[in-house]
């Protein structure tokens, strides 16, 4: 099939081999980096979190705690800080098993309702509705924001749950969220998912979030 090449540059065999090597080396590098990354983005344990060990993805029990962001001069952006116990739907003693089950239910519901088709999660998804990455910390859902008063609730988690169960009862913008048949259990689980997602160390994304008044306790 191949005539004798006049030079290496016009040899199909040379280029086939080069392509094989480039692809192989790239793929191996990617696999090697992925092994490292997967270890770093696996959920930490509750004990490690209590011991304040550094981690990128906190365990489900992070819902028992206050989540804030503080500026880290060394890294040059805000990093999550897990604070004192904080009630989540009236409790701050979810066991790892309970918290895992809640988070799992929340993630399943987020997929079942296809939230990602309008909202972005970690910046990925649709652009028709607000980004949910740090929604848990958003000033709109704090005491100073409109949603608590509108839903007649006293906490962030209740405001969020009540809103998403019956979004058309609380229209805030021309673009409304449709009724998706979210039950009370599902709503609580979704809020747990949102709180967990807000605690993920996203390397400072979204930019300037921490500067917003009331958003987080950033310094």
């Amino acid at each position, binding site marked *: 099939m191949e*005539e004798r*090449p*006049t*030079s290496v*540059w*016009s040899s199909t065999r040379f280029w086939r081999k080069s392509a094989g090597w480039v692809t192989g080396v790239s793929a191996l590098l990617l696999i090697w980096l992925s092994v490292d990354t997967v270890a770093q983005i696996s959920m930490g344990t509750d004990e490690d979190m209590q011991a304040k060990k550094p981690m990128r993805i906190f365990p489900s029990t992070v819902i028992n705690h206050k989540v804030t962001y503080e500026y880290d001069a060394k890294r*040059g*952006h805000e990093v999550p800080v897990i604070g004192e116990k904080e009630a989540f739907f009236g409790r701050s003693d979810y066991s790892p098993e309970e918290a895992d089950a809640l988070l799992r239910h929340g993630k399943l519901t987020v997929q079942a309702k296809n939230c990602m088709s309008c909202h972005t999660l970690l910046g990925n998804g649709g652009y028709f509705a607000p980004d949910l990455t740090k929604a848990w910390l958003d000033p709109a859902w704090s005491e100073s924001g409109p949603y608590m008063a509108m839903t007649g609730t006293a906490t962030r988690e209740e405001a969020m749950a009540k809103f998403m169960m019956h979004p058309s009862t609380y229209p805030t913008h021309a673009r409304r969220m449709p009724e998706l048949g979210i039950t009370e259990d599902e709503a609580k689980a979704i809020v747990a998912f949102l709180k967990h997602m807000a605690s993920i160390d996203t*390397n*400072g994304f979204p*930019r*300037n979030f921490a500067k917003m008044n009331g958003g987080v306790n950033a310094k």
Partner: protein
Amino acid sequence: MPYLDSSSFLTIFVSAALVILFGAAYAGTFTMIKIERLRDYMMPLAYSFWGLQTYSLWVLSVHIKSDPFTQKVLMGAMVGYLIFPHIVYFLVQRTHDACESPESH
């Protein structure tokens, strides 16, 4: 990750687009001259596209607040890009000459 001033966004987007577009203009003009669709005296034009591309990348790197080391690396990369169309053209010519010589038809 440096905080950027939003007034520099437009410069960033435009210079990033220009890096690629001038890059194409350089490679395109260079090739056109090589295959004699454009006259030889146009060659300075091709290289001035490369110059504009390098300048665009410099502007980009300043506005995204790259550290001095990265800026040097980027300028080094531009030297690489100066050679790149030469390499591609060399390869295209070698492969075509090897396969399209009269006896292979």
